C-alpha cells in the first residue's frame, strides 16, 4: 500500500478503556468504589490515565500503517477522558521524507463523541525494510 502526504488515517471509533481495564493498568484489584465515588460527587466516572490513550494512538498507527515502524510518538492530554466513553481516533500524514530512510510524520487526535479534542499528538515512522 502506498501512502502520501495528506492521506487521512481513520477515523476509527473505539470505547475508552473500561473501569476494569484501568484497574488492571494501575495495578489495583478494582476501581469500582472510585467510579462510584466520582459519580456520587457529580463527576461522570473515573479518568483514564493518559498513557493508556497514548497506547490507543500507537495501536491506531500500527493498524493504519502496518509497513511502518514507530520511531517517535508525542501526545498532549488536553481534557480528561472518562472510562468507557466513546472515542474517535483519526490522523493525517503531514510530512513524507525520503532522505536517510523513508519516514512519515502524522498528526493524530482522539476526539470525544461531541467532537472535543481530548488528545492531540504526532508520530514519526520509518519504513520497514523488506528483509533479504
Amino acid at each position, binding site marked *: 500500500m502506498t501512502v502520501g502526504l495528506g492521506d487521512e488515517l481513520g477515523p476509527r471509533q473505539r470505547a475508552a478503556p473500561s473501569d476494569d481495564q484501568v484497574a488492571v493498568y494501575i495495578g489495583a484489584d478494582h476501581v469500582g468504589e472510585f467510579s462510584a465515588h466520582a459519580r456520587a460527587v457529580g463527576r461522570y466516572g473515573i479518568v483514564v490515565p493518559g*498513557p493508556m490513550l497514548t497506547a490507543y494512538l*500507537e495501536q491506531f498507527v500500527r493498524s493504519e500503517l502496518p509497513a511502518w515502524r514507530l520511531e*517517535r510518538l508525542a501526545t498532549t492530554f488536553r481534557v480528561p477522558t472518562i472510562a468507557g466513553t466513546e472515542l474517535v481516533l483519526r490522523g493525517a500524514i503531514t510530512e513524507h521524507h525520503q532522505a536517510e530512510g523513508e519516514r512519515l510524520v502524522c498528526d493524530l487526535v482522539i476526539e470525544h463523541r461531541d467532537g472535543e479534542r481530548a488528545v492531540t499528538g504526532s508520530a514519526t515512522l520509518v519504513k520497514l525494510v523488506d528483509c533479504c
Partner: protein
Amino acid sequence: MRRVIAVSDDLLGREVDLGEVTVTSEMIATYARAVGDAAWLAHPIDEAPPTFCLTMRRGMTPEIALPPGYFGVYGGHDLEFHRPIRAGRTYRVSARIIEVFEKSGRSGALTVVVREGLVHDRSGELAVRVIEQEIIRRRPESAA
C-alpha cells in the same frame, strides 16, 4: 520573581536511578490486555508494544513536594523508541527533572515540570527516552 514551585539545585538535572525491571511475557500480556491490544495478544509475546515502556516507571519521578492547595496532572509526553523492549531481559530505569517553568494557561497561571526518563538495557544501550510534562496548578477554590 518568586517561583510557586521550588526545585532545589541538587535535584534539578540530577539523574535518579529508579532501579531495574526484568520484563516478562506475563507483564507484556497483562499490559496488552489492559490497553485492549488484541492484535499484540494474537502472536507469541517476546517483544513489548512500544508504549509498554510507560509502565516501567510509575508516577512522576523524581517527585516534587507541592505547596498546599496545588495539584499536578500529567500533561503529555514525547516518546523516542530506540530499541524494542523484550521479554526475559532486564532494563535499568532512570529519570531527572530537566526544566521547570511557569506560563499562563486557559485556566490561569501554571507551572510546567519537564522530566526525562531513560530505559537502558544491560549492555548500556538506550531503549527508550521519554520526555514528559507535569502541569501544576492551584486547586480551584470550589474544590478546596
